[in-house]
């Protein structure tokens, strides 16, 4: 894969990855923003409003027609949270020109449509359209409220909110439901201009076209991007772990209990290396992990039990779906597995399984243009380089001592349990 990096304007970079392997091409434009309570709702609302239409294609019907005409290309808003950084923007996926009938200049049309959706929205009197802002405000409100429909996801969000109260990390990335109804088009237009002028912009392309051609097309599509703002990001916050673990129980009319335990790491490091991933695979990430084999399979405590790590913030969440009377037993089993790892009780074959599992997933990610670009962006945010193959190789070198050290560094801070209310 041939890689090129272009600095298009100050704070605006394009990475192109050329390969003939895929039937599709991938292009994304990402504006990086610090996660904050004030802006969470506006970020989310802005993207939905931009998806409603452009000056040339002013409603969803016209936009859809254009995408259908481009052989089902999709240009959709994308929000991705990486620690306390939020990336907002558009991602385009489209069939590669090589397989299309006729002489289709897909790439140029897709990049120019993406540019229009970002920079040239449907407006009225110089402002984002009032009716779009109001209707998307209502939709966003409903989406935030609908979080309660997915009990596992809801329990995870509640845990985050409680454990990280007062930190940007505790902010729900879609923002507040009520606030979504209050934002008006003047305020959103002002915010939109700030976002365009003052966010670092990272663009990625993966497909069969030459880097120089892509750079030329992107430069043209973004020629109206306002300049002059300070395109930089604040440092990620890493508050130190402290107190004793807290317990919070909440009640709802549910059939199954959802347990979520939040852990914070006491020291940082290795975020740009696969050590954390290998630890997570062994502890609760994969089907051969301690949580899956011991907590789920051997003890039949739950249908799911797993862990995930946010490598940017260096926090870990463990979640499990359990019977209402199994809380203490499950918590104890989870802590027991973690303590066992931190004491260094790691069998060579389970370590090898975890290392291979992680290497396998990094290597497989090379088969997806979107995954390749997402990985590159994550590494860039951490100020690190490296490609997926190097990561896979490094994963195979992680030692039992590395895993034990990381297990000891994660400290539980909050245990959240969502259960059925006691009968009245």
């Amino acid at each position, binding site marked *: 894969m041939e890689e090129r990096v272009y600095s298009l304007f100050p704070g605006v970079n394009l990475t192109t990855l050329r390969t003939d392997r895929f039937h599709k091409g991938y292009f994304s434009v990402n504006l990086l923003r610090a996660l904050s309570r004030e802006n969470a709702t506006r970020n989310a609302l802005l993207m939905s409003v931009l998806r409603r239409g452009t000056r040339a294609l002013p409603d*969803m019907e016209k936009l859809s027609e254009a995408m259908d005409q481009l052989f089902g290309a999709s240009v959709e808003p994308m929000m991705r949270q990486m620690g306390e950084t939020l990336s907002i923007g558009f991602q385009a996926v489209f*069939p590669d020109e090589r397989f299309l009938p006729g002489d289709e200049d897909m790439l140029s049309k897709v990049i120019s449509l993406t540019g229009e959706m970002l920079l040239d929205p449907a407006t009225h009197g110089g402002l984002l359209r009032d009716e779009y802002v109001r*209707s998307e405000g209502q939709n966003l409100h409903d989406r935030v409220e609908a979080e309660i429909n997915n009990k596992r996801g809801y329990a995870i969000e509640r845990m985050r909110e409680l454990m990280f109260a007062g930190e940007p990390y505790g902010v729900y990335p879609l923002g507040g439901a009520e606030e979504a109804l209050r934002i008006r088009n003047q305020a959103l237009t002002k915010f939109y201009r700030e976002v365009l002028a003052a966010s670092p912009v990272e663009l990625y392309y993966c497909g069969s076209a030459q880097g120089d051609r892509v750079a030329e097309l992107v430069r043209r599509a973004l020629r109206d991007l306002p300049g002059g703002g300070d395109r930089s990001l604040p440092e990620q916050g890493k508050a130190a772990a402290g107190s004793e673990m807290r317990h919070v129980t909440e009640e709802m009319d549910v059939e199954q209990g959802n347990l979520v335990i939040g852990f914070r790491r006491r020291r940082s490091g290795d975020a740009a290396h696969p050590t954390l991933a290998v630890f997570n695979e062994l502890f609760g990430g994969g089907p051969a992990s301690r949580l899956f084999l011991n907590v789920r399979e051997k003890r*039949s405590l739950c*249908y799911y039990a797993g862990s995930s790590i946010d490598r940017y913030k260096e926090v870990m969440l463990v979640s499990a*779906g359990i019977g209402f009377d199994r809380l203490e037993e499950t918590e104890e089993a989870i802590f027991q597995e973690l303590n066992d790892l931190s004491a260094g009780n790691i069998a060579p074959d389970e370590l090898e*399984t975890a290392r291979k599992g992680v290497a396998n997933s990094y290597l497989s990610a090379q088969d997806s243009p979107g995954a390749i670009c997402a990985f590159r962006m994550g590494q860039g945010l951490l100020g690190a380089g490296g490609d997926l193959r190097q990561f896979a190789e490094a994963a195979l070198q992680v030692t039992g001592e590395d895993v034990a050290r990381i297990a000891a560094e994660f400290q539980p801070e909050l245990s959240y349990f969502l259960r059925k209310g006691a009968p009245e």
Partner: protein
Amino acid sequence: MNLKDYPGCGVRMWEGTTAAGLPVFVFPMPGYQTKYAFFAAKYGGCDRRFLLDGNWTDTPAGIAHYLEHKMFDMPGYNAMEKFSALGADPNAYTASGMTGYLFSCTERFDECLEELLRYVTTPYYTAESVAKEQGIIGQEIRMGEDDPFRRVHQNLMKALYRSHPVRVSIAGTVESIAEITPETLYDCHRMFYTPSNMVLCCAGDIEPERVMELAEQLVPAGKEAPERDYGEEESLSPEKVRAEEKMPVSMPIFELGAKLAWNADGKEWARQMILADLGCDLLLGKGSPLYSEMYDSGLINQSFSAGVYDFPRGGIFYADGRCADPMAVLGRIADGAEAFRMDASARARLERLKRAKLGRFLMSLDSPEDIPDAQAESWFGGWERMTYPDLVQNVAEEEVGAFLRDTLRTERLSLSVINPL
């Protein structure tokens, strides 16, 4: 093995059948890291009543899924752990009409494939392990009961059908799975996990001949799968027109649907599903006037979707999402279908939709996981998936119009709603 070339799509497919009667398909994907195998039986959640040694036999709801969970048990070890030790990522799932076992890996493909073929063809169930699984699957069923989207769907199926087994969810109920014994599992494995009722599909940078060799060696011969019963012939009218329930949700969640007229010819059924899918997009897709009108008036939001979906001996049209007034959505859809005319603008839209379907099909060919899964599904369905672009191209506009007018009539539609508490 024979090689089939589809140069227009940039795809090649090797196909063959083992002496025992197992169909094998291999898609070479040079340069890809992922190597993937999918081994499936045409046996799923709906296959509950069949001729067992000459007698019509009913088995408990959820048994195919239960069997899937228990297949990983091998004498002395667990197959899941073996794959993990090989650095592969194993998985399995049960659908209404099939059960699939799969793995993806980046190295040691042959060893992984051997293990896959071995464990799926080795029934091994003890009373103790079967009893223990009830705790895990019981939690899985409860998790499904807390999911309003699954509940709204299951309630719709119950409302649409009178006796089709699709009325009960694939995982069954806590009560039905309590009846499962090792003996029933052995019987079901013997009846359905037989080469002519299965298929093996692989993709990646792999050697087709080696796949065939291993399949020849490791998949033993068996009898033909038994005749199955999916309940009495049903009319196209729904059994019930409404189903409502209350749960902790933020606003009503709905799914409405209509039964489609089943066709026993696999190719014809595939063609009708494709035409119905185009019809749904034409009437209700994001580029349609009806979608815009409903979205702009705030009746629906991004959660709205519509399409078709099939299962053994049946299929439905559906539209679902979150919305304050599901009855109004039903009314607009029925009115929209009745008023639909294939005028110049609808014709132009249909042509654009065909382009979009073609493009999306091409894009789906990048996934070493999706190609084998889709191949298995179409094989069991009795049609060739790689003919999809031609089938789309040949859909006639009159047929699309007729589908919308006939199917989306008020008297054929049933509405399921989950209301907030």
